[in-house]
């Protein structure tokens, strides 16, 4: 038999992808969960942030000459949301959120592996531990990026302002985001032994990170303390960049440019991937 150097990495990528396909319920929830957000939050708030249905005058406010109030209000909303309607704004952030949630919670499979004994199978193999864990993270990242793509494609049906040309580039950012949070999930999971403990930590982190990432509302209108936190949130950079490539809306804080976003995500992915590698090398079956 032929010896292949990257073989352990391929083994784990293969495993994660196969597992995803074998769990069809997960496929459904991948699509269903963001769909719920899009429909109820996106459509609900979408019509609030739209002046098109607004015809009359506001009591006590004189109408400026040459402009209708609805035009004025619409202009204001468009500025806030970077020139697109709210539904498009939100849907373009939803792909990043899906990838973020799926990859972060994906670390839970490490704990399942501890409980079902599969971790021992990977620990006793003569393969490089770094390659094994990198393969696992890579596999999860591929799977979650595909989930992100599915959400983007759904977005095309629901929202009007998305551009097909930006999808390819957006996927690169989503993939780096997936590596970042898969690695973080794995690092946390390697330290823990219970599923409940992991879920608690992840739930504690996901909600604030989600709301301070610019998915649901722009950074510019956030309170300044929230902006500071958003700056240290890797998800913010993915949300900004993916939205930029999908819709052209450039709504971010000052350091956020498509290039900077890429650098930040690449750095985050590299650092956390290496951390996961070192953490897995130190792993033994001792409690």
């Amino acid at each position, binding site marked *: *038999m032929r010896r292949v150097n990257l*073989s352990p990495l*391929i083994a784990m990528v293969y495993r994660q992808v196969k597992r995803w396909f*074998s769990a069809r319920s997960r496929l459904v929830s991948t699509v269903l969960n963001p769909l719920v957000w899009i429909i109820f939050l996106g459509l609900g708030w979408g019509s609030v942030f739209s002046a098109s249905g607004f015809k009359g005058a506001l009591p006590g406010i004189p109408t400026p000459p040459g402009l209708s109030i609805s035009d004025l209000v619409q202009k204001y909303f468009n500025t806030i949301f970077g020139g697109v309607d709210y539904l498009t704004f939100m849907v373009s952030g939803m792909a990043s959120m899906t990838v973020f949630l799926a990859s972060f919670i994906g670390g839970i499979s490490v704990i399942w592996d501890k409980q079902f004994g599969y971790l021992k*199978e990977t620990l*006793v*193999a*003569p393969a490089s531990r770094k390659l094994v864990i990198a393969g696992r993270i890579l596999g999860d990242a591929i799977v979650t990026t595909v989930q992100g793509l599915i959400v983007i494609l759904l977005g095309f049906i629901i929202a009007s302002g998305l551009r097909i040309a930006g999808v390819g580039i957006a996927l690169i950012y989503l993939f780096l985001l997936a590596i970042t949070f898969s690695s973080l999930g794995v690092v946390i999971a390697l330290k823990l032994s219970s599923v409940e403990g992991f879920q608690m930590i992840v739930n504690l982190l996901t909600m604030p990170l989600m709301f301070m990432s610019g998915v649901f509302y722009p950074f510019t209108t956030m309170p300044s303390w929230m902006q500071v936190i958003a700056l240290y949130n890797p998800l913010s950079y993915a949300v900004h960049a993916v939205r930029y490539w999908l819709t052209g809306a450039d709504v971010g804080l000052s350091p956020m440019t498509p290039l900077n976003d890429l650098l930040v995500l690449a750095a985050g992915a590299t650092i956390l991937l290496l951390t996961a590698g070192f953490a897995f090398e130190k792993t033994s079956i001792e409690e």
Partner: protein
Amino acid sequence: MDVIVVENLVKKYKDVLAVNGVSFTVRKGEIFALLGPNGAGKTTTIHIIATLLKPTSGRVIVEGYDAVKEPGKVRRLIGIVFQEPSLDQQLTAYDNMYIHGRLYGYSGNELRKRILELLEFVDLKEYAFKQVKHFSGGMKRRLEIARGLLTNPDILILDEPTIGLDPQSRARVWEYVRKLKNDLGMTILMTTHYLDEADELADRIAIMDHGRIIAMGTSLELKNMLGSDVIYLKLSKQAPESLCREFNGVKDCRLLEDGLIELVVENANKVLPEVMKLVMEKGYEIREVSYRKPSLNEVFLHLTGRELRDSLEASSPPRGRWHR
């Protein structure tokens, strides 16, 4: 040739000594069994040999490689079947095998061929593409054995290979283990708490208790440690008491009913011909001969003061036969 050398192995968890100065060697091509109750330190010992745990002190040398200093080399030489299942239940039998092969650096057509060969060896070929979660306990264990063999290891380590299996599955696993030794000359190191399993399969047995090896040898050697086989002779007619005084090398002699004589001897194999000759010379006709070797259970009882069966039930305190 010794393929595994274990020297003065000690493993301490906080203040519990799981393994306390264990030394033994496993020879090429033999089946070596660590026999003992749960918590005796068998699995810990095996995990150290398999490089999954680091010993507190002592050394393990596998085919010349130190398990602590060169774990990668040792991992290449061994295949291991863990006590608890370590399969990915969501995947098929084939995929479990495939990923294992890939982890060890194999790929391509030969890997595919070998997977199917081994699945056939353990009679799972028709289930190759079924998800493991639908498998029975016996099927899972067989799959794990096949997986352990995939990379052609020199040494196969089996941790309680038949725990929780029904009698048919057990017999099947035994059959595979015998085949591996006889047909392929594989060296097998196994743990078990089943006396019959160690007796049936192992060339040599080390009895472990409380982290120590308390006796080691072939099944026969261990039983001979007790040195009291019991011979039963059934004669055509009732013999007088005086017959008992005629025997040499007999520890105890009793006349029972129906012409039955019970003799407690050092070694029945050696004494029996002489005893029979003597009885016949005295003019008795022998109707039946039987003798009973002490079982491993009696050996364990002799060494620890309690029965192996009893110590399996962790909830009940160990009861020696002496106190009953």
